[in-house]
């Protein structure tokens, strides 16, 4: 046992239980006589302290090999631009989503100007990109060779060298629901074949979930599988298939539904042209298979509910054919029956049937349907909706968010006008995260941004954000000029 080990043992146990070791003679130490065991131990501890500190040796570096970063070809961003980026990273003067956009804009402008992020700002930028996936795709080429090197280094140390895999190859292996969803997104036909092959080995829940994944990119080729799913043992699978087939007005099921719907519709011409609608009778087995609820064993059957299932399953042309006119005519003939119009709106919505949607929107504002219109048309409807002054449904924020940017002048003005009204706070709060991104610089002349800010906090904040966002963008362009 070495002297130091012995010393440690004595100290841990205490001299009361363990004697102090003999001082190391080969260090030329000769201890004084007649000292207490504690003093002898402490003397040696003092010696060990000095000896340890005076005899340190460097560690080897064989396990510490890193390939240095390659040289950066383009020059760093000019100082003013660097200052802006630093501000955005460390003390963003605007909200998080706006900040991300401004950082993206910075990276784009820098890349276009052939400049790169100064090395000292890379850690903060990469840390931000790590938590904000929307930024990650914009890092190159502005982060330069040094940034790439740092990213590789991070990957190496955090993932133990497992590289990224081909997403299709990963998703094709039988496995989790997410894998299947990925495959369906990337290769719908292969996903369909895989599901058909695995059908028998999957649980009811899995079958329903995987079928549900078809909703995102439903195709005519999916019909045979969906048709077969109508005969599935599990109710949840049958319901999913019904939901999906509702999207397909050209399917065999839709034709069967049309055959059920048409006899129920009769046109009467007096006093003026209108529908006389009969409710369906007892559904037969084929109807139940197509999703029409069977009659309950006891109590009254809900014929109205059965009728609405038929409406949603049948093609909308049944209505125009029977009425002998376009959707507007059909709607005019149904004016008094709002529940049927609701069902037609749902059907038009899930099919994205533009003529019907337009006709329905002429009848009433419906934020849900607006979402199916092409950008410009949607914008016009939103302007109308904003100008009505009626309470805005929460879906409006999503619709505004989804519009192509920048917005036209009319919509921009309508939104700013609305923010200045008494209930503008809701709109301001709902759009705060993206409104500044949607406005063109011309809109900044609006009175909302030139006069005293309103009292409402949310309004003040969003108006301030608009001004700040655009002023930073301006500075950014100038900084790289």
């Amino acid at each position: 046992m070495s002297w130091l080990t012995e010393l440690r043992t004595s100290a841990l146990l205490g001299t009361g239980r363990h004697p102090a070791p003999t001082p190391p003679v080969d260090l030329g130490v000769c201890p004084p006589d007649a000292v207490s065991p504690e003093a002898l131990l402490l003397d040696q501890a003092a010696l060990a302290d000095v000896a340890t500190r005076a005899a340190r040796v460097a560690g080897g570096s064989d396990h510490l090999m890193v390939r240095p970063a390659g040289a950066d070809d383009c020059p760093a961003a000019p100082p003013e631009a660097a200052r802006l980026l630093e501000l955005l990273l460390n003390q963003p003067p605007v909200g998080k989503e706006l900040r991300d956009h401004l950082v993206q804009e910075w990276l784009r402008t820098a890349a276009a100007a052939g400049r790169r992020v100064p090395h000292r700002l890379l850690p903060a930028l990469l840390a931000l990109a790590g938590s904000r996936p929307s930024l990650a795709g914009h890092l190159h080429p502005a982060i330069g060779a040094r940034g790439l090197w740092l990213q590789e280094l991070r990957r190496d140390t955090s993932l133990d060298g497992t590289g990224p895999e081909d997403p299709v190859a990963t998703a094709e292996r039988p496995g989790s629901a997410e894998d299947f969803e990925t495959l369906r997104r990337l290769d719908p036909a292969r996903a369909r074949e895989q599901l058909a092959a695995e059908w028998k080995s999957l649980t009811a829940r899995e079958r329903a979930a995987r079928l549900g994944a078809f909703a995102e990119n439903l195709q005519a080729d999916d019909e045979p599988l969906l048709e077969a799913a109508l005969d599935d043992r599990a109710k949840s699978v049958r319901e999913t298939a019904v939901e999906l087939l509702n999207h397909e007005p050209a399917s065999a099921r839709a034709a069967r539904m049309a055959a059920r719907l048409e006899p129920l519709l009769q046109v009467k011409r007096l006093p003026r042209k209108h529908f006389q609608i009969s409710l369906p009778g007892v559904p037969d087995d084929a109807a139940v298979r197509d999703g029409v609820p069977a009659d309950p064993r006891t109590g009254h059957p809900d014929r109205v509910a059965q009728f609405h299932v038929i409406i949603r399953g049948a093609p909308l042309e049944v209505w125009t054919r029977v009425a002998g006119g376009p959707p507007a005519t059909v709607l005019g003939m149904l004016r008094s029956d709002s529940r049927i119009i609701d069902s037609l709106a749902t059907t038009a919505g899930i099919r994205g049937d533009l003529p019907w949607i337009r006709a329905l929107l002429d009848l009433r504002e419906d934020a849900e349907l607006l979402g199916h219109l092409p950008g410009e048309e949607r914008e016009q409807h939103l302007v109308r909706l904003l100008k009505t002054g009626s309470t805005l449904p929460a879906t409006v924020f999503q619709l505004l968010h989804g519009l192509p940017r920048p917005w036209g002048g009319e919509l921009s003005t309508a939104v700013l006008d609305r923010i200045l009204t008494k209930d503008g706070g809701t709109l301001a709060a709902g759009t705060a995260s993206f409104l500044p991104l949607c406005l063109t610089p011309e809109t900044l002349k609006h009175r909302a941004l030139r006069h005293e800010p309103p009292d409402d906090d949310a309004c003040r904040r969003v108006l301030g954000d608009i001004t700040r966002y655009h002023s930073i963008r301006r500075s950014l362009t100038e900084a790289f000029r």
Partner: protein
Amino acid sequence: MGGWSEARVIESAPDESSLVAARKLARPGPWSETGSNDVLVWGKCQGSGKTPYQVSIDISAPAYRCSCPSRKFPCKHALALLLLWSRGEAAATGAETADFAQDWAAQRAARATAREQRSADRTVDVAAQEKRLAGRLELMDAGVSDFSRWLGDLMRTGLASARSQPYRWWDGVAARLVDAQLPGLADQVRSMGSAVHGRADWADHLLLCAGRWWAMTKAWEGRDRLSADELADLRVALGWPIPSAEVEGSEAMAGPWLALGAHRSSDGRIQQQRTWFRGPDGGIVVVLDFAAGGEGLAAPQLAGTLVDSTVARYPGSAPRRALFTAPLLPGGTSPGLGTGCSVAEALRQESAAVAVSPWRERHPVLLAGVRIHPDGPGWLIDAVGDALPLIEAPMDSLLALTGGHPVDLFGELEDGHVRPLSLVIGGTVVVP
């Protein structure tokens, strides 16, 4: 006194939140009647109240005054004004000094004069001074012998049982040392209370520290045999500071002084800043600044800047503590920090320093051509492959700045680890 850079303003902020608040105010909107001269920057800031806050800043001290109720110094208003001023967006020179700023400067001057007067007036009562000294020595003697008895008990019962003691046990020992006017020793003992629970190598750490403390008590008892410098080192370690008045009178060394690197720390009550400088003769000194409560630390000297001033050095072994005895004039920046050494040489220097002053735990090192490696705590590796672990290293920043290429690095060698304080990148000294 020239203008401040924005970096320097940022450094003077007491905390991050003040700076965030200040940035929001650093726009011309709320400000009026701003101005500056060589010494003062002033302005009025419209806050939530009716009367605007009056802000005055003495940039030479630096000292801050604001009529707002904030207890931070400098407050967000002062910081915002300095930001505007540093960017040249407000408080241009030329305006007549505002009354409130003038009054404040006059009050400060009057107080300073009064203070000087008092110290000059104080007749040196030699007898009373000696009595005080004798009293202090008696107290310290008693404290030291009490402490060495405690060390003996620690060794008899063993370190394992000391580890089972609660924090207040260590605090109690530290408090007794403070009462005995041995605050330096007290700090070491107090921090041991958490080290025995926090460190994996706690047993070795405690054993070696106990040995060092023991050696300090022995050295104190035999202080008559120590040289003046050895005694000075021991005094610092025990916590008996040498009054700066005694140092100011000693020989002043002319500059320029190159700032090598600085480290700031705070224990909650007291902020400390230590800055390493190298003089024209190659000798290294360290300047300590303290600030307690509402005071702000002296503005830092950024690594790589040259300072024209004279310093007086405290007694003790090299590198010695020093203080500036003349106004600090900017003398430009240096493209590098000088010629560094290898890791082996740095360890040799540490070894030599320990031999001269076994109490000292921190040594300045300038290493040449070292590469940074992120493994574990972080490492630096020199040209021949010798490696030293890092402490308190901002690893992301070090890697981003160096790219894994060799650089000159200045830092503090402490307990076998290097705390990096500055680097030389492409002919510029940067702080990671």
